Structures are given as structure tokens and as C-alpha cells.
């Protein structure tokens, strides 16, 4: 239990995927213009992350490792994730149209989200158990949500600011992200020694 708690705090605050590990920067910058889209994207990411962690862990543990095929990890993981996203999209469309309506537009963007492949690679590196890996995915998703939603608030305010011409658009967004990232550094001392 204590270990899971450490994973939760670690993945959400101390090594927040977006703000300190730089995983999932593209959606972080791309869909954080409005809080509502940020929430939608985050929901889809948490959903896919948990699912993909479970499936990739099983693939790794029961297919790759016993056959000494670890060198196929990258290729197997990315294909699994791509197929999974496609599958989720199709199933949601047919079975739960209301959820598909909420998450659907964000799903295709997730395959290329480094956070998903990144967490799969990290559970291998850290030798997590199945439960830990899935929980890590969930916690990383929550961290992603936290960063995205917080930042969308910042960006909504940026809209009304008077910004120098060259800084308009991406540059000022990046600098705002830098300041949000500074605040997250304050969590560093939460690490359990």
C-alpha cells in the first residue's frame, strides 16, 4: 500500500509527466487552450493509459520476456498501443455512444502521445509488478490531468494579455509553462527518502 502511495505522489507531483519528464508535451500545448477540452483530453488519456499499461505489461511479461525478445519491446508496445486505441474507438462508438461523444475526438491523438509509450517503457525500467504498472499508468494520467487543467486556466488568462508580436502564440505559452513548471519543483522535497 505504501509503495502504491509513493507511486501516486511520485507520478503526480514529484516527477509530473508533463512538467518534469516532458512526456506528452504535444497535447499539453495543443489542447490546453480551453479548460473544457483539457478535461476531455485528460479523461481519454487516463482511460487509454490504464488500459495500455495492463495490456503492454501482459505482452511484455508473457510474450517477450519468456522468449528473450526484449529487443522487440518498442515495436510491440507501439503496435499494441495503436491497435488498442483503434479498438477502444470502435468499441466506444458502437457500445457507449455518450462516452464516445465525450472522448472520441481526442482518442486518435493519443497514439502519438509520448506519455503512453513512455509509461510502458518506464514500467520495464523500474520492474513494476502488474498492479504497480497499472496504478502507475493511472497516477501518471492524473498528473497529466493536473498539469493540463491547471495550465488551461493560465492560458485562458493569457488570451486577454497584451503580448509582444514575436511572442504571440507558442513562445508565450512555453514561457507560461516554464513558470507552472517552477511551481511543481516545489514538490521535489516530497520524495520519500
Amino acid at each position, binding site marked *: 500500500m505504501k509503495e502504491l502511495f509513493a507511486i501516486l505522489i511520485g507520478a503526480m507531483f514529484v516527477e509530473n509527466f508533463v512538467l518534469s519528464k516532458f512526456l506528452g508535451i504535444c497535447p499539453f500545448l495543443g489542447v490546453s487552450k480551453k479548460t473544457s477540452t483539457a478535461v476531455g483530453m485528460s479523461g481519454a488519456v487516463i482511460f487509454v493509459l490504464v488500459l495500455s499499461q495492463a495490456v503492454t505489461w501482459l505482452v511484455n511479461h508473457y510474450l517477450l520476456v519468456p522468449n528473450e525478445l526484449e*529487443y522487440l519491446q518498442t515495436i510491440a508496445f507501439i503496435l499494441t498501443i495503436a491497435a488498442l486505441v483503434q479498438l477502444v474507438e470502435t468499441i466506444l462508438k458502437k457500445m457507449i455512444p455518450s462516452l464516445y461523444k465525450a472522448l472520441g475526438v481526442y482518442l486518435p491523438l493519443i497514439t502519438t502521445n509520448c506519455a503512453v509509450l513512455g509509461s510502458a517503457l518506464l514500467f520495464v525500467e523500474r520492474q513494476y509488478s502488474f498492479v504497480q504498472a497499472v496504478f502507475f499508468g493511472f497516477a501518471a494520467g492524473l498528473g497529466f490531468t493536473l498539469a493540463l487543467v491547471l495550465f488551461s486556466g493560465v492560458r485562458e488568462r493569457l488570451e486577454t494579455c497584451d503580448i509582444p508580436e514575436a511572442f504571440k502564440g507558442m513562445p508565450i505559452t512555453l514561457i507560461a509553462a516554464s513558470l507552472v513548471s517552477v511551481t511543481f519543483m516545489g514538490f521535489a522535497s516530497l520524495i520519500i*527518502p
Partner: protein
Amino acid sequence: MYKEIIKPSIILFLVCAVITGALAYVAAVTKPIIAENDKLAKQEAMAEVLPEAKSFSDPVSFEALEKEGFPVTGTIKNIYVAPDCGFVVEVTTKGYGGEVNMMVGIGNDKTVKGVKLTSHNETPGLGAKAANPEFVEQYLGPIPEGGFVVVKGASKSDSEIEAVSGATISSRAVTKGVTEAVNLIDYIIDEDAAATLNTLAGGN
């Protein structure tokens, strides 16, 4: 039917097969080189932390030590015996950016001969400074009574380790590793457990 399903499937299968074959070939070529690199790096690190040693035994793992009743925690990974000279302990602790792996060389006379961080993920310019010689040299010398303590600011005695400024967590991680290694060797020498260790190491 053919054009819709079979042909795409065959082509996808072929591409996967070719790529997998290429990967298998590269893996077969690089695997021994990678293993050799790791071995060399390890040997170099061991020679560096215990320069007087002429040879090292095979590693004795944490599991084997635990089974024989040595007082070890999970931080100790392996221990190598250098006949008539001392021991090298491989320790892993948790630092700021993840695992900190280090080698600690300790002589039979209970002096710390060398400490080397073999891999870590500490922040460059901050925690990473804990891998610098200036920092790890603080541990060298006879094992102090009561172990090492991390202090902020200048160190006043042998037992005090001056933390890298701004990186107390990394400094503590290294200190914890060295302390664990020292405690284990302390026990081995005091309890005359070296013979058991030698048997485990498959030595004479």
C-alpha cells in the same frame, strides 16, 4: 475479397517479418558487445574503488546473503571478495531522479578505499555533483564511529559529510548506500563471516 483483406494482410505480415528479421540480426550482433561493455565497465569501476585488489571473486547476490543470515536490506545488490585485500559492495539507493547505483570498496582494515557512482539519474549540475570525486572523497578513510551524517555547510569531522549544496536528497542517497555497505562489511569482519562469504563466492 483479395484486394480488400488478403493482400493488405500479406503485405503487413511481410513487412513485420522483414523488420523482425533485421532486428533479430542486429540484436544478435550487438548483444555480446553490450554484455562485454557492461562487464568491462563493472570491472573498471571495481578496480577503481579497490585499487590494491589483484582479482575479484564472482558476485555474491543479495538473495544468497539473505539466505545465509547476513544483515542485509534490499539496497545491497552484490558483493565481491578481493582475496587478502577487501570487498567491493554494489549498492542501489533511491535518489532524487531515481535509482543511484554505486560501488563501494572497503579494505580488510575497515577503511573505505573508494566510492564510485556507476549510474544515476540525478539532475545535472545539482545532484549529479554527488558523483564528482570532490564529493565521494569525503567517505574515504577509516570507518567513523557512529557512521556518516549528512550536514549542510562545512564538515567538521570525518563522520560529517558536506552535502552538495541544493542537493541534499542526492547526498543522502549516496551516504545511505555507503553506510549500508560499511555496516555489512563491519559485520562480516567482526563476526568472522568472511569464510561463509568465501564459500558463497565459490572461492577457496
